[in-house]
């Protein structure tokens, strides 16, 4: 195996927190503990009980010390729940009884108890079962490690400049993190919404999660590259690859520094046209990142993440709390655009018994789902309206495909308004209501829809998928998913013209809005507002400040008439690197 270890391998996962890191791995062994199970003699029973209570005491102290740190509210609640176990006399009694009656050591007794707990979950619905068994595992692991005297590294003593590699990192691990010593993280389990990812984003720690087997394949001291822009991890890279990434990394850092210089400058084109750049976000902790990148407004808040994060239907109160926090933390001068639930059968929470659909993209999702489940929809609208008193809220409906549907949705919103009025609950009276333009039919009748809303936001990912009939996750056709198809540009152009004629706002969210290759083209098509990932905002701004809007129009007119995608892509690429050499030379790799 020694030979195999030195071969470069690439692991694919998901981006937990964006960035790049090159460094040595530090394996945090939270793998399966080999539990020693043995019978004990009667005279040893007391000693085993003492060992167990010592382990519980130690666990309690560890958790209390983690809780003393500066933690987010979520983080605190999870640790509090862990702490409750260590003071659970009933649990302690059960283990002691097992030691006494079965003459077994403390480890075995603990294992027996937790195996029993897991067995009681067998009949439970999957979601809650997963949630509970994860909690049991975390509690079990802590007590067991303390029993066995396995040093639970608190992660504040790890060597400097390491990349943490682990099966999983618990919220307690993350609390002990000394951010200045750690440059990246990679875990077997987890997704973008798991706790480790959220906490890593808040710390701006590059991380790739969901790698499945990374913790068993990597050893402490292995050279590792975290490519959390692509969502992969390279283990034992060749020198050539290391070189390339080190260059990427220093360019990345250099660029970040340079970008921060324009942080507080306006996003105005060379010839004085004002462009708005807003942020797309999913989590409250991204507000800090947004502010660091000089962004003031939120152009798209994906509210379904409240549900996905919870793993169930969020209540009106829970949503109200998130929305009000959101509005309060950006300040009253900032616009906050919240998109109502965009859930489909592919990402519905289990509790809602998602129907099995052969074609979820075209099935019961987003606004269609909300109109079907008016109870859930109304809860969301109530939460939104109630929170609206804290700032400038805009409500946006996803996947609108026609006028009748739009009117239905606005009718429900009016009903909710009236309900609140009757209940004497306050809400803002100047809330803008807008829609996503992401279904081709909506783009085609944009002029009609523009008469009845306050703003449009063009969602390019779905617009491309539906217009070109391409499923991007299907490897056989994904190469056909192109933003440079002239049909897409025509729909965008038409939508912008309709909005301009009606005098309403229109912005670009979706990946195309943050793709700097497309910035000039979009400005040429008339786009004056972009909504991007917070980290991408300054890249767009940097470019905007170098663009002349009149030549952008000429450029767009040329491009839109190129009817072969390949031809248009080549044209854009060549023109962009010729016009803005110092941006695109260094940029090519992030696209």
């Amino acid at each position: 195996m020694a030979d195999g270890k030195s071969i470069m391998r690439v692991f694919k996962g998901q981006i937990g927190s964006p960035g790049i890191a090159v460094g040595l791995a530090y394996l945090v062994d939270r793998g399966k503990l080999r539990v020693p199970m043995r019978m004990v003699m009667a005279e040893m029973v007391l000693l085993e009980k003492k060992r167990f209570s010592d382990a519980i005491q130690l666990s309690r102290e560890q958790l209390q010390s983690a809780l003393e740190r500066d933690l987010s509210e979520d983080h605190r609640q999870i640790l509090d729940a862990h702490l409750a176990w260590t003071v659970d006399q009933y649990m302690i009694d059960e283990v002691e009884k097992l030691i006494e009656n079965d003459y077994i050591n403390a480890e075995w007794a603990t294992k027996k108890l937790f195996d029993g707990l897991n067995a009681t979950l067998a009949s439970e619905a999957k979601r809650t079962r997963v949630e509970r068994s994860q909690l049991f595992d975390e509690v079990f692991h802590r007590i067991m490690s303390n029993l066995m005297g396995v040093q639970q590294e608190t992660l504040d003593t790890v060597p400097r400049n390491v990349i943490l590699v682990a099966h999983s990192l618990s919220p307690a691990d993350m609390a002990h993190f000394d951010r200045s010593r750690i440059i990246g993280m990679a875990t077997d389990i987890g997704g973008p919404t798991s706790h480790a990812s959220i906490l890593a984003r808040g710390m701006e720690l590059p991380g790739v999660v969901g790698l499945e087997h990374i913790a068993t394949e990597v050893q402490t001291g292995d050279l590792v590259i975290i490519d959390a822009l692509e969502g992969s991890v390279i283990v034992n890279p060749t020198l050539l690859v290391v070189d390339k990434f080190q260059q990427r990394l220093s360019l990345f850092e250099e660029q970040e520094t340079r970008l921060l210089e324009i942080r507080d400058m306006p996003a105005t084109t060379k010839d004085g046209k004002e462009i708005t750049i807003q942020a797309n976000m999913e989590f409250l902790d991204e507000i800090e990142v947004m502010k660091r990148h000089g962004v003031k407004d939120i152009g798209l808040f994906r509210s379904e993440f409240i549900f996905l994060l919870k793993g169930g239907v969020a209540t009106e109160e829970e949503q109200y709390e998130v929305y009000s926090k959101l509005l309060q933390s950006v300040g009253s001068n900032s616009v906050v655009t919240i998109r109502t639930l965009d859930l489909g059968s592919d990402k519905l929470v289990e509790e809602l018994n998602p129907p099995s659909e052969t074609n979820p993209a075209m099935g019961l999702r987003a606004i269609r789902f909300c109109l079907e489940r008016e109870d859930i929809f109304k809860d969301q609208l109530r939460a939104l309206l109630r929170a609206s008193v804290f700032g400038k809220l805009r409500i946006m409906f996803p996947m609108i495909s026609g006028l009748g549907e739009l009117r239905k949705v606005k009718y429900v919103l009016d009903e909710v308004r009236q309900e609140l009025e009757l209940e004497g609950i306050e809400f803002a009276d100047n809330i803008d209501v807008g829609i996503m333009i992401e279904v081709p039919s909506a783009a085609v009748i944009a002029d009609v829809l523009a008469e009845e809303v306050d703003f449009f936001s063009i969602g390019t990912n779905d617009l491309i998928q539906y217009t070109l009939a391409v499923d991007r996750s299907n490897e056989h056709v994904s190469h056909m998913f192109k933003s440079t198809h002239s049909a897409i540009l025509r729909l965008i152009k038409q939508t912008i013209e309709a909005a301009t004629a009606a005098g309403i706002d229109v912005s670009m969210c979706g990946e195309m809005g943050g793709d700097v290759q497309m910035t000039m083209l979009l400005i040429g098509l008339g786009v004056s507002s972009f909504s991007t990932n917070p980290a991408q905002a300054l890249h767009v701004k940097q470019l905007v400040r170098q663009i002349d809007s009149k030549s952008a129009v000429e450029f767009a007119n040329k491009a839109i008439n190129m009817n072969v995608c390949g031809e248009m892509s080549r044209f854009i690429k060549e023109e962009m690197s010729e016009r803005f050499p110092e941006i695109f030379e260094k940029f090519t790799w992030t696209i």
Partner: protein
Amino acid sequence: MEHFNFDSGAISREVIVQNRQGLHLRPAAQIVKAMATMNCDIKIRKDNKVANAKSIMSVTTLIATKGTVLTIEANGPDAALAVASLVQLFEQKFHED
């Protein structure tokens, strides 16, 4: 469905799980926290299963979804107070809905 047994100071009372999520982690933590300082025995019964309301482990493993009927049983000096506060938690849907 309330009956008092004055001899032993025992009280029992039926409640229905009303919050959508059922008795998951957060409600369990709320129950245990509220019951910790009560000077009485307090149990939650679901069919043949009985949970000690002062134990997070015990309450967490009493799997009760929305609509489940539970019986709260308390015995001791604080029994009345304990039952009342527990019933209130259930009725307020654990501040969830």
